[in-house]
C-alpha cells in the first residue's frame, strides 16, 4: 500500500489498462492509415486515465454506457480485445457481429451495455439501468460516459433531473476534452461550468483533472460508493484533451480551432507518462515489470489482430438476421 491509500494491485491494474488502451490505439493508427480498418474510428488517446480510473472502481456486473469514442471504456470495463479488433475489421466474430464498427462496441457480459453514435443518447439509457437496479434492489451501479458535447443536448438535463429526483445509482462521467468535433466549448456554451449544472440538479458535481488517474480513481470511488449506498447520483467532469483528430488517425493541428501549441501542451501532460513517473517514485513499478507488462500487452494485441484478420466477414445471407430477437 502506497501513500495514496490505493492498493498496489489496483494501481498496477490501472496502469495496465491505460497502456493497453494506448497501445491498442497506436496500432489502430497504423491500420487506419493504410485503410485496413475503414469504419469511422474515434481515438481515445490522451483520455485513458478516465476510463481506467473509473472502471477500476466498478464491479463486473455494474453497467457502463459509452459513446462514439468507445475503445477506452470497452477495454477498461474488461471487454474482449479480440472481439473488439474483429469488430473494427467488420468481421463476423466482432463483438457486434461486424454490424457496429468502432462506434458500437458492446460486451454485456462485463457490463459494457453498448456505445452509441448519437450524441447524448446513452445518458438516459444509463439512468434506465440504474432505475432497474433500484427496482430490482441489486445495487448494481450504472456509469454514463459522455463528452462535453453531450451536455449541449437537453437530454443531459432530463436525465440528471430524473436520476436526482429518484436518487438512482448512476454516476455521470463527463469527459470534457473541450471540443465537440471542431467546435470548442466556449463557442457552444456561455460558460465552462458543466459541473455546476449538475449541482442545480441537486447532486454533487465536481471538476477534476482527467489526466490524473489517481484523482479520477478517488473521485469516482466516492461517487460510486454513494450510488451503491443509495445516496444518489453524482457528476464528475474530467478535464482532458484528445490528441488526435475528432475522427480517424491524423492530427488536426491548425484545421479550424486547434493550434499545434495547444495540442503539444496537452501531449506534455500525458496521463500515462505522469502515472509511470508516480509509480516509479513509489517504487511499485520497476523497469523489468514495465517491460513485462509492455510485452504482455503487445502480445495480446498481436493475438487480437491475428484473430481479427483471420476471422471471416459476415456473409451476405446474414444481412436480415436479428432485426428482431
Amino acid at each position, binding site marked *: 500500500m502506497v501513500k495514496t491509500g490505493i492498493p498496489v494491485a489496483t494501481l498496477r491494474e490501472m496502469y495496465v489498462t491505460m497502456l493497453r488502451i494506448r497501445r491498442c490505439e497506436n496500432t489502430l493508427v497504423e491500420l487506419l492509415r493504410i485503410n485496413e480498418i475503414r469504419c469511422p474510428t474515434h481515438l481515445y488517446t490522451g483520455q485513458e486515465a478516465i476510463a481506467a480510473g473509473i472502471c477500476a472502481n466498478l464491479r463486473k456486473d455494474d453497467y457502463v454506457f459509452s459513446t462514439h469514442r468507445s475503445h477506452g471504456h470497452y477495454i477498461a470495463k474488461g471487454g474482449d480485445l479480440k472481439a473488439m479488433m474483429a469488430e473494427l475489421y467488420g468481421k463476423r466474430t466482432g463483438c457486434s457481429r461486424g*454490424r457496429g464498427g468502432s462506434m458500437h462496441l458492446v460486451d454485456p457480459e462485463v457490463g459494457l451495455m453498448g456505445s452509441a453514435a448519437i450524441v447524448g443518447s446513452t445518458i438516459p439509457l444509463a439512468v*434506465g*439501468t440504474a432505475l432497474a437496479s433500484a*427496482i430490482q434492489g441489486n445495487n448494481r451501479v450504472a456509469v454514463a460516459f459522455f463528452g462535453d458535447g453531450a451536455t449541449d443536448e437537453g437530454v443531459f438535463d432530463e436525465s440528471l433531473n430524473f436520476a436526482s429526483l429518484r436518487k438512482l445509482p448512476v454516476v455521470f462521467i463527463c469527459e470534457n476534452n473541450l471540443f465537440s468535433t471542431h467546435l470548442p466549448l466556449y463557442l457552444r456554451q456561455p460558460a465552462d461550468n458543466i459541473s455546476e449544472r449538475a449541482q442545480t440538479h441537486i447532486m454533487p458535481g465536481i471538476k477534476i483533472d482527467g489526466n490524473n488517474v489517481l484523482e479520477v480513481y478517488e473521485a469516482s470511488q466516492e461517487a460510486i460508493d454513494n450510488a451503491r449506498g443509495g445516496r444518489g447520483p453524482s457528476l464528475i467532469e474530467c478535464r482532458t484533451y484528445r490528441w488526435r483528430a475528432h475522427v480517424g488517425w491524423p492530427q488536426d493541428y491548425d484545421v479550424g480551432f486547434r493550434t499545434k501549441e495547444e495540442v503539444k501542451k496537452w501531449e506534455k501532460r500525458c496521463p500515462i507518462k505522469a502515472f509511470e513517473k508516480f509509480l516509479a517514485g513509489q517504487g511499485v513499478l520497476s523497469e523489468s515489470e514495465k517491460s513485462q507488462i509492455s510485452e504482455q500487452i503487445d502480445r495480446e494485441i498481436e493475438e487480437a489482430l491475428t484473430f481479427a484478420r483471420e476471422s471471416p466477414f459476415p456473409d451476405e445471407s446474414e444481412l436480415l438476421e436479428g432485426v428482431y430477437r
Partner: protein
Amino acid sequence: MSRKLTYVQAINEAVTQMMDKDSSVFIMGIGVNSPWYVGQSCAGLYERFGDKRVIDTPVAENGMTGVAVGAAMAGMRPIIVHPRMDFMYYAMDQIINQAANWHYMFGGRVNVPVTIRGIVNRGGEQAAQHSQSLQAMFMHVPGLKVVMPSTPYDAKGLLVASIRDDNPVIYIDDRWLYEQSGEVPEELYEVPIGKGVIRREGKDITVVATSYLVCEANKAAENLEKEGIDTEIVDLRSLKPLDNNLVIESVKKTGRLVIADGGWKTGGAGAEISALVVGSAFKYLKAPIMRVSLPDAPAPASSALEKAYYPTAETIVSAVKKVLEESL
C-alpha cells in the same frame, strides 16, 4: 365465459395482471398516477404496486423514454406511456435510433423488451398538436413492432403480447374505443403480434382496416349489405409485422380492396398495404385500390371542420362503391 369489459378496462387489466405476475414489468409516463390523465387505463395501479413500479414522470418524453429503454436492457419489461402520440416526436431518437436499432446493431447481444404505449387522443376540438396518429412512421422503422387493437379482447391480448415480446413494441390505443365493451377472458392470454383477423367474411370486396376504423368498417359493411354488397373485413391488429398472407388471400378472393387507416393519406399505412397487394396479388385485382384516411392536412379545432376531417362508415361506404364502379 362471457365476462364483458370495456376497452380501457381491458388495458388496465392487462397491465395489472402482468405486473402481478412478473416483477420485471413496471409502468412509467406522464399521468400514470393521475386520476384522469390517461382515462381509467392506469386506475388503481399506484395503489396496488406503489411508487417503485408506477412512475408518474416529469414532462421529458425523450429522457423518460430513454430511461424505459435502458431499464429494458437491464432485464426489465417497462411500459412507457405517452398520453398522446403527438408528444412522441420528442422521443423519436430513443424510439428509433436506440430502441429499434440496438438488437441488430449489436449483433443480438442486447435486446430491448420495452412496450411504448402511444394513445391516439383526438376530436373534441383539440387541434393539430393533440390529435395525431403516427403508426405510419413507426411502421417504416425496422426493429420496431406496431400493434393497434380494435376490440377489448385484442386490447388486452395484444398488450400482454407486447409486454412479453423481446423487442420494442409500439402499442397504439385509441380513446374513441375506450368505452366499447366486449368479451374479455379473465385469465392472461396473448393475441399474437403479426396476425390479423377476418372480422367479417365477404366475397365482393375486402376492407382492410386498423383500430377505430374497424368499427366504422363494420357499420359500413352492414349498410353495404342492405345494398347487396358483400364486404370482407380484415382487422390488421398488427401493422408491423404485417399479416401479408391474410391480406393477400382476402384480396385474391374478392379482387377488390379498400384500406381504412386513421393516419394521413400520403405515405400512410394504406400506401404500404396497397403496394404490398399490387406487388403480390396484382393478377387478382379487378379494380383500383382506394384509401380511406385523414386528408393531408393538420387536424383543425372547429367541430365544423372536424366533421369533415375524420373518416367514418360513410366514407368507407363511398370508397367501396367507387371501387365497385371502377371495376374492370
